[in-house]
């Protein structure tokens, strides 16, 4: 990727993100009233994060087994009510154990 292409991507990302935050903050003084659009916006973060995680997580590690281990560990630790950082560490540890074991044996 050339530096020009990078600059275009960066400008698009940063520009859109900034305007999304700033325009409503400056202009809108009223809350959105429509229950439908409020609900839609409330669901968006969760659907985005799930779609980004699956199946992409299976292609980030050395093997699908270690990725599956990370996924299961992360879900398990989250169900126990642990916070973001601990869940993230547990997922990393799961991958390290499985991939490490593959390297050794």
């Amino acid at each position, binding site marked *: 990727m050339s530096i020009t292409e990078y600059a275009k991507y960066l400008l698009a990302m940063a520009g859109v993100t900034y305007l999304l935050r700033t325009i409503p903050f400056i202009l809108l003084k009223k809350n959105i009233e429509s229950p439908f659009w409020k609900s839609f916006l409330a669901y968006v973060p969760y659907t*985005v994060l799930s779609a980004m995680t699956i199946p992409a997580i299976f292609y980030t590690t050395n093997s699908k087994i270690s990725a599956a281990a*990370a996924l299961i560990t992360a879900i398990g630790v989250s169900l126990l009510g642990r916070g973001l950082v601990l869940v993230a560490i547990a997922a990393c540890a799961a991958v390290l154990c499985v991939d490490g074991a593959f390297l050794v044996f």
Partner: protein
Amino acid sequence: MKFSKGICDGLPIGIGYFAVSFSFGIAASKFLNPCLVTLISMTNLTSAGQFAGIQIMQAAGTLVEMILATFFINLRYSLMAISLSQKVTPSFGTLQRIFLSMGITDEIYALAMSQKERISPTYYFGLTVLPYIGWSLGTLTGSVAGQILPTVLTNSLGVALYGMFIAIVVPKVKQHRPTLIAVAIAIAISLLFHYAPVLSNVTPGFVIIICAITASLFAAKFFPIEEKTE
């Protein structure tokens, strides 16, 4: 509310951001140099958006795709901005809003909204400082580490970001069944686009957009979220 209180309140967010952006740095260091990776974090300050952004960059997606993906993934910030605008002091003028809107993230917003008092510009600025530094510094550290550390280690650290995503989704899904349904639909569509012939040609940015919009529209239509009385 004081600047110094903002700094203190922002500390835990800053530490958390350092950890998360570290893994973003690692992921992006596979195809960008550390300076360019850090610049993304310094200008965006958004986890899911940046993550999708580098996926699109890596896949050499179109600019339209980048704009649409960023728009839909970060659309929630507009909602937060609207709700935050109801909670600020009158001294929070247009100029302050132009500068400080950069700090509207999930965590900073949540912390600001949990305060009893109205939010002053100085407090909000203080609240933003450490998360911003943590996010930028974590990215820089991660992207340098990504080039030095062995692959086994960086791959394992790379899942940290997914771990965080899971940690956000799971507790919500556990207590709110319609979100579970929405998430299941999003995952099903995502899998379909990844493995079905023809559909797998659709680039990752658009897949995320299609999944999120379809699943969220469906859930909003059939399971509208009840108004919270404040």
